[in-house]
């Protein structure tokens, strides 16, 4: 975590000129998939969302409510159907060098070793590979995989692969992180550890994070605000600010305030029949 990586300015996200200004502004966003066999699928409907710079936002919702779709649109790898998405005051037109993405599946390249997988974004963006390699080792150590850097993804468990995917998303010190159920395949202990590490990185890098999870308590524990989504078509049901002080610790799971938030979110899904 010591040697800073030089992030080359391509279309980098500049620091906001005025405080309180949104880093991401989503207005009336719609996404309709047209499929051959299932007709048109209305995945996202009338999404309005502002994300402040440095904010930690989590998204919960039943499976199929468009969480991954929303993240892919923000990552610039999926076209929206209509509406507006602005990042740092510019219309979003494609992927961004200051963006890190953790996908729902680890999506590792099986012919590359663990460390080379982590280095993929650095290689694509032609960063200094010596520095990137040092950082990759640090990241792998952070997620408890230091002994595995020369192994291949096929030799790793699902949870280990997921952690490699997380390191890959962080290798170029992105200012904006999109994470799609990043800890889904991890056991409870590792998961809590990773939550704490992620919050540390978030503070250290002054990053902005959008994280999808199917764990309501994880959503509350991490977030400044929790976005609750409802399905068919996917829309935002509620945006709930979390009144827990920072820095957060694992004891907060047992506080009444925490329980109150979890209960309020759970009530949204009782009529829908649970999430994920």
């Amino acid at each position, binding site marked *: 975590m010591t040697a800073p990586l030089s992030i080359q300015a391509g279309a980098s996200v500049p620091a906001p000129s005025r405080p309180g200004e949104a880093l991401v502004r989503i207005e009336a966003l719609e996404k309709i998939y047209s499929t051959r066999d299932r007709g048109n699928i209305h995945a996202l409907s009338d999404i309005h969302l502002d994300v402040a710079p440095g904010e930690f936002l989590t998204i919960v919702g039943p499976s199929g409510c468009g969480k991954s779709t929303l993240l892919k649109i923000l*990552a610039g790898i999926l076209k929206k159907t209509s509406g507006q998405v602005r990042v740092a005051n510019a219309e979003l037109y494609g992927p961004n060098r200051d963006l890190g993405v953790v996908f729902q*599946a680890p999506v590792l390249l099986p012919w590359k070793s663990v460390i080379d997988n982590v280095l993929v974004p650095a290689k694509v963006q032609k960063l200094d590979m010596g520095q990137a390699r040092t950082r990759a080792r640090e990241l792998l150590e952070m997620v408890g995989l230091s002994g595995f850097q020369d192994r*291949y993804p096929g030799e790793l468990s699902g949870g280990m692969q997921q952690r490699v995917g997380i390191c890959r998303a962080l290798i170029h010190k992105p200012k904006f992180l999109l994470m799609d159920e990043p800890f889904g395949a991890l056991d409870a202990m590792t998961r809590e550890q990773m939550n704490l590490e992620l919050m540390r990185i978030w503070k250290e890098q002054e990053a902005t994070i959008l994280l999808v999870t199917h764990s309501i308590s994880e959503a509350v524990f991490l977030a400044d605000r929790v976005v609750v989504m409802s399905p068919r078509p996917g829309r935002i049901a509620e945006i709930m600010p979390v009144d827990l002080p920072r820095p957060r610790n694992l004891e907060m799971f047992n506080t009444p305030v925490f329980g109150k938030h979890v209960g309020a979110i759970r009530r949204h899904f009782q009529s829908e029949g649970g999430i994920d």
Partner: protein
Amino acid sequence: MAATDTAPAAVPAPSTADPVRATRWSESRALSPLLLVAMLLLWEALIHLFDVPAIVVPTPSAVAVAMWEGIASGLFWPHFLVTLWEIIAGFGIGSVVGIALGVLIGLSPLMERLVYPYVVAFQTLPKVAIAPIIVIWFGYGISSKIIITATIAFFPLLANTIVGLRSAPREQVEMLEACTANRWQIFRMIRLPQALPYIFVGLDVAVVLSVIGAIVGEFVGAKAGLGYLILQKNFSFDMAGVFAILIILSLIGVGLHLLVVAIQRRVLFWSEAHANSVTGA
């Protein structure tokens, strides 16, 4: 008796660890050669029993003698080299052209619409039928055989390269796009490695077809080579000699196949499943 043992006492014989499995293993290993020996003996016996003339079917022992004579006299050697060179050069040229055209078509829908119909039309032509034309155009020497072999080896690589380049999972491409990769980087870092299992299947098919290509070319008209030698032996009713050459040809095919498989094992260590690819013969 321990004092006279040649093996150091510290190293236990591996077979003692699991004697049951050891005998089974040796049995399964010996089974296939045993079958061959049995077949050869039966073959030999049947020919003697029914008094089959040697110009129709030779005995295995006669084939063995012909093989020994062909090798010892140095008769087979120059022909073997000519045919091997035709196979390898034709296979190499056909593969390179097939992969190159496959990359072009696989990456460009325009090229596919423009070129691919003609490629398929060419593929439907039996190469045996155009072999005489190629011999007339390029002569009785080695070059016409190389060209015939190349036209046969080319298609399996073309078809497998096209399918392989399209086999890259969408998630992997999206992952690279999200890191701001351009088309060339996506090709080099994902599409090409994903195509390799398919390309190797193409190489394996093509290498066996190349043996056929070279022999067909030599049958049409040649001055040297194992195919040419087969025709000569046929004319002189030397059936044992023909069979000996056939064995050499099949050894060439098996050898080249094993070579491709060995390279494949090293390159594709990461690919656990064999790709379901196109075997366009």
